């Protein structure tokens, strides 16, 4: 069966440069680490891009390619391939928002997001799905975003798949994923192989701590180096604090606060950047927060509203054989069976996948403490974990959350979990337990403070039916933050138009996951890459006074 020896089975492609950023910087690419600035600084560019993740990375590459002078601003540090040592103790504080401890206001949902050059793409798990046709159809029909059809988006997705090496994972799945396939097959649920954005992947399994060999085609090793090679300037450890408006509501500049080297607090150094156009790509928490701090116009009260998370349930199975869930590509098998059971705006559906297992992530996610927790941890190599990502934002009562500001100006996310969600959560916990028992689990434990787990499917079925599903008792996590600066067909229905242009601010384009008017219903990175490629191509033509592209 699956060979789980780390590094044994590898993709038969090699990547030419392991650490293009380090090599390029040595050759003179421009990078300013704002934490080292000694004095206030003024800069100027054609375009300032705020945030260097999925949306910001693609924007930087395309705009520099078009010959525009680009400055890419990132709050997090610049860490490159050679810095990645597969240690949770280093990766979470260095590469994640709030040391991977970001939570919703009621603390019921833990949110994973990147905060480093490359944003969440530096730490993501490489699953690469096009926006599902169901989602695009809903946007077209229910939301009036006619332009965004499967056909019109296909070339943009294809171009990005090509750029980032996306293809179905050709190697056998690790045992954690293999058991999802086996269990699902036994209960008659179809599964498929996940396309991944990797070149020359060694099947190590540490994508979440930054790929140590540069195989993952994150923004850090693809678009950002390409932009810097074209003369773009990267400024790391600079927090975009406020956009400065002219009386005509044009943005005239960005005020940035240099962070101290530990990334916790700003130093006293300010950086001001002037530009013709601003691209906002701080992610679905960071982007609405910057606009709120800047008191940007928001005549219809839509800013920061309808933030979606794919709130995710977790189920841990224990097998008699070793699973070694930390070894091998983390996500390679999925099932959309439970997304397709009901209408898209009916009872909430969920996508089934697996997470990688690492000691800190696993131990802090598992419920309980003391001897019971220790016993579960001793099963670590035998643990197999499934996650169910609930598709939010389509059902009339699935309204998502809301980004607002704390008194210190930092973003807070409210996300009430209501009955519509909990009903889906119970179905998800049941579905996962059934599949895990069918795959041969000895024991299955939904991650919930109210249970120690079950030793048979019959017992699980009864137990889960009675579990009180409530915030804080039932563990909910998310690595997919979406929405808050949603696209709309008209200014009454969105913060930006379907090309990402802000309805009230003429020289602002939003280009990240905050654009989405619902959740995606699939891991979002490729949706962001595709939409960014489309929108930034349009913008580049406009900024250079070239004829507009003839696309819908």
């Amino acid at each position, binding site marked *: 069966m699956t060979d789980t020896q*780390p*590094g044994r089975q590898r993709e038969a492609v090699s990547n030419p440069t392991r650490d293009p950023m380090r090599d390029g910087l040595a050759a003179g690419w421009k990078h300013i680490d704002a934490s080292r600035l000694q004095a206030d600084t003024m800069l100027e560019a054609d375009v300032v891009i705020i945030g260097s993740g999925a949306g910001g990375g693609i924007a930087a590459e395309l705009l520099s390619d078009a010959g525009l002078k680009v400055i890419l601003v990132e709050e997090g540090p610049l860490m490159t391939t050679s810095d990645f*040592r*597969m*240690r*949770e*103790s280093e990766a979470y*504080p260095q590469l994640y928002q*709030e*040391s991977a*401890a970001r939570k919703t206001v*009621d*603390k019921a949902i833990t949110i994973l997001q990147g905060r480093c050059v490359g944003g969440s793409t530096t730490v993501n798990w490489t699953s690469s799905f096009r926006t599902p046709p169901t989602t695009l159809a809903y946007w077209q029909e229910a939301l009036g975003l006619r332009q965004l059809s499967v056909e019109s988006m296909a070339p943009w997705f294809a171009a990005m798949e090509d750029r980032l090496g996306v293809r179905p994972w050709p190697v056998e799945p690790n045992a954690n994923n293999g058991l999802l396939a086996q269990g699902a097959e036994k209960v008659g649920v179809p599964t498929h192989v996940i396309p991944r954005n990797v070149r020359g992947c*060694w099947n*190590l399994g*540490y994508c979440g701590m930054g790929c*140590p*060999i540069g195989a993952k085609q994150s923004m850090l090793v693809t678009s950002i180096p390409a932009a810097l090679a074209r003369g773009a300037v990267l400024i790391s450890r600079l927090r975009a604090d406020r956009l400065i408006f002219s009386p005509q509501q044009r943005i005239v500049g960005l005020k940035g606060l240099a962070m101290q080297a*530990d*990334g*916790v*607090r700003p130093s006293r150094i300010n950086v001001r950047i002037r530009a013709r156009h601003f691209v906002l790509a701080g992610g679905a928490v960071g982007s609405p927060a910057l606009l709120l701090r800047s008191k940007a116009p928001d005549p219809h009260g839509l800013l920061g509203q309808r933030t979606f998370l794919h709130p995710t349930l977790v189920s841990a199975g224990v097998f008699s054989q070793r699973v070694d869930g*930390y*070894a091998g590509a983390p996500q390679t098998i999925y099932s959309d069976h439970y997304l397709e059971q009901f209408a898209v705006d009916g009872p909430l559906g969920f996508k089934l996948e697996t997470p990688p297992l690492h*000691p*800190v992530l*696993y*131990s*802090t996610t598992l419920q*309980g*403490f*003391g*001897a*019971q*927790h*220790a*016993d579960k*941890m*001793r099963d*670590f*190599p035998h643990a197999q974990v499934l996650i169910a990502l609930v598709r939010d934002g389509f059902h009339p009562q699935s309204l998502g959350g809301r980004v607002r500001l*704390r008194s*210190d100006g*930092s973003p807070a996310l409210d996300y009430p979990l209501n009955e519509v969600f909990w009903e889906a959560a119970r179905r998800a916990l049941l579905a996962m337990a059934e599949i895990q028992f069918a795959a041969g689990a000895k024991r299955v434990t939904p991650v919930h*403070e109210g249970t120690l787990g079950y030793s048979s499917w019959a017992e699980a079925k009864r137990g889960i039916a009675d579990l009180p599903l409530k*915030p*804080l*008792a039932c563990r909910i996590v998310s690595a997919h933050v979406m929405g808050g600066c949603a696209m709309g067909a008209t200014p009454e229905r969105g913060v930006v138009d379907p090309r990402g242009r802000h309805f009230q601010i003429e020289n602002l384009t939003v280009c990240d996951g905050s654009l989405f008017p619902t959740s995606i219903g699939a891991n979002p990175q490729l949706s962001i890459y595709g939409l960014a490629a489309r929108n930034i191509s349009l913008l580049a033509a406009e900024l250079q006074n070239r004829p507009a592209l003839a696309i819908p």
Partner: protein
Amino acid sequence: MTAPVIDRRTFLKTGFAGTLLLACVGHVAAASDDEEASMLTAISAALLVGMLSGQPAARTEALSSTVAGVRQAVAGLPPHLQSEIADLFSLLRFSLTRRFLAGVSAPWAEAREEDVAAFLESWRHSRFSLLQTAYGALHDLVLGAWYARPEHWAAIGYPGTPEVF
């Protein structure tokens, strides 16, 4: 000091910060860093039952590296979380609130493991979300600090990270 006039329920509803109680605690607590170390040690010991060595020297050593790990993790959090955690630690190390909220009567250095476990268990299942979230913070900080350390990986059969180069 006199007992602040605030009932448990109002207190739990208003949150850690901004309460009269905290204002009193803040004063006293600033002085006693040792008490914070004892508190974190006692809580870590209860959370880590089943993983801690029975051998006293090894146990003391492992607990002190865990407490150091917790402090290091807190120092890396954004200011709004650091201040929430600071409020929580202040309340726990101050004897009045330790009894009142956690129900632990002995000072932390002398508290019995069962009593500490009982307090954690009651917060874990508390009907006050504030206490549930406080339990969650202690859970994540302590277990995270423990399992971040390579010397604790053998006990869970984790072979460690692969050799890449």
